[in-house]
């Protein structure tokens, strides 16, 4: 039973570590603020969720201590991680950070111009 629990815990922690390393490589290598935000928000959230589920299973199965604070932390990170990345990228677009020169498509630009025109009329 302990070996089975250890296999489950090691599986979750290894998946989380892979995603954390992918986050670090993405923040290190990608050329642009928006691609870096994309790397940091999604894969970091998934990695920390997997590692915290591994910690929760360790305390539940090995040490018989059911700790709901970890599940609450997983839920909070699942809600707030992508929201933080999105609001950061939107505010830096409004502040005028240029996208990378290889960007194919920019969907936010006509929306921002329309909003500026409405506010100028009002």
């Amino acid at each position, binding site marked *: 039973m302990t070996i089975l629990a250890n296999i489950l815990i090691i599986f979750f922690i290894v998946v989380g570590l892979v995603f954390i390393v992918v*986050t670090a490589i993405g923040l290190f290598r990608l050329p642009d603020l928006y691609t870096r935000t994309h790397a*940091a928000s999604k894969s970091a959230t998934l990695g920390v969720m997997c590692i915290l589920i591994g*910690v929760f299973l360790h305390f539940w199965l090995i040490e018989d201590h059911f700790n709901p604070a970890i599940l609450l932390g997983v839920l909070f990170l699942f809600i707030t991680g992508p929201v933080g990345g999105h609001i950061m990228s939107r505010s830096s677009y409004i502040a005028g*950070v240029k996208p990378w020169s290889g960007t194919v498509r920019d969907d936010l630009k006509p929306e921002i111009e329309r909003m500026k025109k409405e506010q100028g009329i009002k």
Partner: protein
Amino acid sequence: MTYFIWGSIVIVTLSLIALFYRLVKGPHPSDRVVALDAIGVALICLVGLFSILVETSFYLEIILLLAILSFIGTIAFSKFIEKGDIITRDNSR
């Protein structure tokens, strides 16, 4: 199991060094804020792995605290970068 947890802690610390590189170098302040958010996430992982290593659950309250502080910091910095002001009184947007 102990060697596995030590190896995981070393890997998370190495990725934390890459995030610190982005925090120091980042050309725009937004890059630094994104790196700070990712550093908070990596610190949460480190706290969880460390509490497995020392076999106590007293450190697990730090996880919620770090998550909340990191989120509030990201929101405050994004408001500051967007408008140059954190608390505004107009209702235009």
